[in-house]
């Protein structure tokens, strides 16, 4: 007979395991560990809201305190998923209200959240503390008012890039006078003005406030009052950073910023007037994260600001926090600005350069591949890159790969689709091949430019740790897709748009799809017939065809579907599909359209 530790001891040990992977591994050891673990799991992460149902989750984990759920596929960010597709949070909230009365934390990404959901959650969870909504939509400022009014123990309200129907700024005034627990408030995505006096009173009475990200409507003249009331701030996002009357405001800002001795992160800077940037210099010595991606600041001013932040770097924390600890800029920084970066910010870990004018036919700034090459050479800790540019070469990519074998995320967007190596006019296969070959820990890759099947050979051969791959306008044939599906052992998410991939690779690698979270294919050549076959043969997958031209039965079976979204699930076909989505399964084949 095997002797085991008492349950309490195991529970105590398990409490030290925070990573989901570790907890999942523990639960597979044996039945008794599974039982003990499920009763003491407090935090769950659901990467795809349709992979499992609320009932199944609640049945397995009865004592959850924190939930993180993701909804729509990533390409929804780029308007590829029509409205009404799904990812509604209401069923989750109503189920959790019944079963998790002590729920404290809800974090959602790409989900549809209604005012009704917000009101329900605010009135039902007495100890509710943290609400983070990332790229969510479907609610108005009335929903926020419910949260403010009813969540007496709220610590975090974080709205990141949400589509909120902005009825008025009055929601903020709904925080009661005796409410003092706020630690983090991010309202940067809201449009309308909140009452400044209400905001000032709120900031004054919350001594633990460490994050405050204002929206654009807060003018720069209001900042000094706010900063004076919250000198303990660690993360601060300004509103519009310009004004007409200069002198008074400037000196007030200098004074206010110099009082903030703990600032580590700055963001905001809409409509920035470079003349006001120096006001921040006193606060900059501790800055480790700078988000200037709203700031249309020209290169010299930007470099000045960066020079003032010698500690610009990322602290290694949980992966989701790392995305805040970055330098984010528009391409106004130009090659010259990027050249300065390594001298001043040796510890830089993540760089994101967004385009200021993505739809113009000609470049409006002098930003080329050289900027990225320079940063890759001079910043030894650089591990995460998102870079928009208009030209790239294999030589540059090979150099970057050799300089930075420690890259874990590499997302390159060359704005013109299928742009070749601008020096040789060849495809960029060898360049990206070098990236996957040298960067052995690469977790995420997005490619662009002219790419043939060859690049997928390299990826299948080398990218063994790759978890997420995004492809557009690439490849010549099914061999490309086959190489990815059969070679990338760690692949979890694959998203493909406008590539000539058809049925063969998909059907030959059907089993692979059960080991992944999801596969997205749009404007490819996968036939309706293949989708039906896949749906029939793979009951553990939801094979969803999305087509706005009407039911695919009205077209021949060999005709390609518009969009295909395949994901593994234990919840069966979803019941909330809109009229342009069909689940391929046994029933679908027999059902009349």
């Amino acid at each position, binding site marked *: 007979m095997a002797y085991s530790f008492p349950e309490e001891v195991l529970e105590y040990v398990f409490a030290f395991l925070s990573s989901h992977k570790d907890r999942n591994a523990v639960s597979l050891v044996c039945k008794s560990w599974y039982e003990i673990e499920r009763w003491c799991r407090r935090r769950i992460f659901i990467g795809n809201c349709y992979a499992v149902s609320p009932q199944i989750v609640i049945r397995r984990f009865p004592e959850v305190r924190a939930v993180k759920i993701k909804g729509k596929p990533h390409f929804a960010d780029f308007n590829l998923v029509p409205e009404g597709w799904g990812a509604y949070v209401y069923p989750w909230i109503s189920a959790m209200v019944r079963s998790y009365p002590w729920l404290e934390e809800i974090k959602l990404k790409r989900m549809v959240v209604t005012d009704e959901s917000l009101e329900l959650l605010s009135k039902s969870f007495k100890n509710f503390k943290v609400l983070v909504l990332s790229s969510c939509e479907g609610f108005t400022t009335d929903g926020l008012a419910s949260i403010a009014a009813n969540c007496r123990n709220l610590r975090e309200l974080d709205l990141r890039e949400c589509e909120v129907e902005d009825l008025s700024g009055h929601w903020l005034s709904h925080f009661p006078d005796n409410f003092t627990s706020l630690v983090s408030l991010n309202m940067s995505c809201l449009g309308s003005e909140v009452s400044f006096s209400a905001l000032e009173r709120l900031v004054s009475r919350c001594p633990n406030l460490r994050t405050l990200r204002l929206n654009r409507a807060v003018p720069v003249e209001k900042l000094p009052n706010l900063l004076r009331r919250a000198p303990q701030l660690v993360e601060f996002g300004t509103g519009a950073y310009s004004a007409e009357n200069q002198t008074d405001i400037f000196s007030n800002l200098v004074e206010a910023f110099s009082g903030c001795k703990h600032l580590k992160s700055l963001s905001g800077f809409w409509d920035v007037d470079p003349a006001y940037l120096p006001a921040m210099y006193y606060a900059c010595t501790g800055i480790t994260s700078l988000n200037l991606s709203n700031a249309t600041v020209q290169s010299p001013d930007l470099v000045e600001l960066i020079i003032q932040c010698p500690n610009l770097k990322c602290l290694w924390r949980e992966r989701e926090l790392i995305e805040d600890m970055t330098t984010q800029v528009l391409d106004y920084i130009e090659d010259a600005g990027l050249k300065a970066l390594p001298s001043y910010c040796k510890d830089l870990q993540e760089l994101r350069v967004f385009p200021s004018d993505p739809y*113009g036919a000609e470049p409006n700034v002098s930003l080329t591949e050289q900027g990225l090459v320079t940063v890759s050479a001079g910043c030894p800790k650089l591990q995460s890159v998102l870079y928009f540019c208009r030209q790239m070469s294999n030589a540059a990519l090979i150099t970057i790969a050799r300089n930075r074998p420690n890259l874990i995320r590499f997302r390159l967007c060359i*704005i013109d*689709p299928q742009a070749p190596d601008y020096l040789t006019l060849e495809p960029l296969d060898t360049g990206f091949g070098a990236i996957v070959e040298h960067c052995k820990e690469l977790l995420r890759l997005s490619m662009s430019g002219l790419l043939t099947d060859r690049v997928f050979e390299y990826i299948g051969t080398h990218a063994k740790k790759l978890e997420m791959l995004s492809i557009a306008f690439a490849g010549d044939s099914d061999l490309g897709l086959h190489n990815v599906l059969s070679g990338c052992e760690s692949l979890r998410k694959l998203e493909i748009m406008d590539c000539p991939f058809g049925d063969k690779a998909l*059907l030959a690698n059907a*089993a692979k799809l059960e080991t992944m979270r999801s596969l997205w294919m749009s404007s490819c050549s996968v036939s309706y017939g293949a989708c039906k076959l896949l749906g029939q043969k793979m009951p553990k997958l939801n094979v969803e065809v999305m087509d706005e031209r009407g039911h695919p039965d009205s077209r021949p079976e060999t005709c390609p579907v518009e969009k295909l979204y395949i994901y593994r699930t234990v919840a069966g076909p979803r019941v909330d599909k809109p009229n342009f989505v069909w689940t391929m399964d046994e029933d679908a084949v027999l059902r009349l359209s």
Partner: protein
Amino acid sequence: MKLQLKLALPSNLDEGFDLNYRNEDQEEEEDCRLMKKKRSFDETFEEIKNVEIPRTLSLLDHIDLCDEEDGVVGWPPINSWRKKICHHHHNRHGCNATMNYVTVENGGRGGSGRGRSNYMYVKVKMEGVGIARKEKVQGYKLTYQDKEGDWLLAGDMPWGTFIKSVQRLKLLRNGH
């Protein structure tokens, strides 16, 4: 390493689960071709160049400088937040960014207020090519098929009438 793609495997599920064992493919393709003759204009594989009509037909109307209908949907991969910043910035700098017309006569070009050549792109499926791609509108003329099946040059009639009668659009290279 040469990777061979098997086209047909036995239906033994243990062997990599290749579902490529249908041999009705050839028959189906023939059916598809036959049926095409009866198809209406919303079939997938066009055998002529055509313009994929965005739902809002915004290509033929006002176009925001930062409206993604200018080019391929979903490309470049920029989310709506970033587009708003781009849009605001151009507005702020006094550009005529909200009005960007494409005229439909020969040699029509999209103009922007910024005084430099700025092409309008459309997403087209080119003859014989499976992937849609962006093409500059300049250098093509726009023709359309009306309810009677006749092909006409676009731009010869009022917008309202045009919209009621258009069935398909075709871009022809100048000179054809």
